């Protein structure tokens, strides 16, 4: 088949079941997702459309002749008649190679998504800190992540959708040009970034990740603070040990609150005792505890989403 310069051979997304072999000339391929990127060249001897031939997959490229080009078209009937002339294991090998490529593509997609998450969090955290705003224009986020990690916009959007499904942020706005990404809490994005970074660079769990008991104690603390209606003082809320023990009895499924239970939270400076804290002394020796209410809420939110994160992404 002869294709004149500038003529299109196929369009991305076209239904297809043939393979093209370039005999002479030059085809150039492009995709909508990579608009602006350099074109892919297919000179003499190149083949295009293996997956269309083997699995009737739609064209993944728009192909155009950059110069007068001659191509050979291989139909599925030709493939079948060739396989019929050879032992059955040859077809098994082709099936295996195709399946293996699919797995590699999927692994790459997942890997790219996981790899892009810290970049998104880094850029987003920095913007929140630099501007004091609770949102970032989507176009700016796209631009910055592309510059930092070469992450395409489509992938950023997939990541945002995953984070939105976890209730971490919200993509607002109807038109692409005025869309923005908004967070409820200014601290949760930096906190998540810090936690992922700690895990990756130290190969151990971040101190931000709390045990079940620690989470239960803090949840109890938050519950009492909310019900007490006592206004926060400089963001700090104060709960008496008596209140804490009484509520813990009801809501902590029979867990007895002791100095030993509270100690890790005191060590992490999440709960501040009113007097010196001794792990061996009775809990009642401290009359009350105070804590940064917003910080506790953010930590509890982080601990809610963190175990769901990997599953949500891939």
């Amino acid at each position, binding site marked *: 088949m002869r294709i004149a310069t500038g003529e299109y051979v196929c369009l991305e997304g076209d239904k297809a079941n043939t*393979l093209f*072999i370039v005999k002479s000339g030059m085809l150039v391929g492009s995709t909508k997702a990579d608009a602006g990127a350099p074109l892919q060249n297919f000179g003499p001897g190149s083949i295009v459309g293996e997956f269309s031939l083997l699995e009737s997959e739609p064209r993944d490229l728009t192909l155009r002749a950059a110069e007068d080009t001659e191509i050979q078209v291989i139909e599925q009937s030709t493939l079948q008649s060739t396989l019929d002339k*050879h032992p059955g*294991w040859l077809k098994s*090998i082709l099936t295996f*190679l195709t399946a293996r490529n699919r797995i590699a593509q999927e692994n790459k997609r997942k890997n790219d998504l996981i790899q892009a998450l810290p970049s998104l969090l880094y850029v987003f955290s920095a913007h929140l800190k630099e501007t004091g705003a609770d949102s970032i224009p989507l176009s700016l986020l796209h631009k910055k992540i592309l510059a930092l*990690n070469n992450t395409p916009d489509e992938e950023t959007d997939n990541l945002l959708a995953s984070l939105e499904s976890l209730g971490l942020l919200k993509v607002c706005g109807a038109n692409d040009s005025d869309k923005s990404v908004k967070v409820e809490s200014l601290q949760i994005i930096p906190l998540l970034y810090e936690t992922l970074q700690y895990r*990756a660079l130290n190969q151990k769990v971040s101190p931000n990740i709390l045990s079940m008991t620690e989470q239960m104690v803090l949840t109890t603390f938050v519950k009492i603070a909310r019900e007490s209606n006592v206004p926060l003082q400089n963001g700090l809320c104060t709960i008496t040990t008596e209140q804490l023990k009484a509520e813990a009895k009801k809501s902590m499924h029979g867990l007895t609150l002791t100095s030993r239970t509270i100690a890790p939270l005191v060590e992490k400076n999440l709960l501040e005792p009113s007097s010196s804290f001794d792990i061996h002394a009775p809990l009642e020796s401290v009359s009350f505890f105070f804590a940064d209410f917003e910080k506790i809420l953010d930590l509890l939110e982080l601990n809610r989403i963190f175990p769901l994160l990997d599953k949500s992404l891939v």
Partner: protein
Amino acid sequence: MITGDSRQQVIPPTRSHVKAGFVVYSPDSGERNIIILDEGELAAVERTNGIKSTVFKMHPGDLVGVAALLEHENFRYAIEATEESTITVVTEECMESELKTLPVWMLAVIRSLSSKTRKLKDALHHTRCENTLKSLAEYCSHLEAKKKYPLKDLVREFHWLTRIPSSVIGEEFKALARRKFLVLEGNGEDATVYTVNPLLLQIFVDYQNATERNVNWEPFTLSLAQKRLLVKISSVDQSMSMDAPAWIGFFKEAKLQIDVTEWIRMQQFGWFKASRGNTFSPNTDKIKYYLAALRYETNIRGVL
């Protein structure tokens, strides 16, 4: 005797029956064969510290060893028969002889599938960044200005974000330092880095983006008259708000070349922002951006 029938040159695969427990393939053997299970059951097993564990089981029709044979990838498991089985072994010689009889396009398809998979696998361990200098500039533009950071910490964090090799990151830090966008102090483990003006790094990223797209970057396309207008705007109070004719009059009074076309261009550059009642006031951020770009043009272009 030459018969012209290539099929006669094909080395056939070997078919054999094996009993349960027979080791069909051992990773120590160095052999590269495709093993096809015709009947029975095989298992891929791994031995760690003398403990044997089954990694996966094979059922009739399954095959292993394609990547080992076609791409010389190591197959690290032993294959053992878990019951009496019939297998077909395609050796390297057998495969080669069979491949020789295939049409060229079929060989190209097999090679292309293999090569695409290998590239995808390799890509898992490499950075996606093509312009590593731009990527580092974007990262550094978010560092706190004038705060000294240990260089090794930044290299670690940036490597984690982008997978750019540490040696390349080190070179790119030096490249940004040569452009005076940041300052490197000390050596080795004690080396520190601080950014001078994060806006310059952001400008540099924008310039790099324009260069990659082969488009002219607006700050470097300004005419002399436009530059003069820019300097004049930078000198006025940012709260000053006037309608378009009043601004044109203002510039004319300062003996600067201006007409409606030039006024529209200034709007496109973003030098003014709309205020109430159809009036405009200077957009300080944009003015600073253009002025910085012009002032540090040689640093940005890298022609120091």
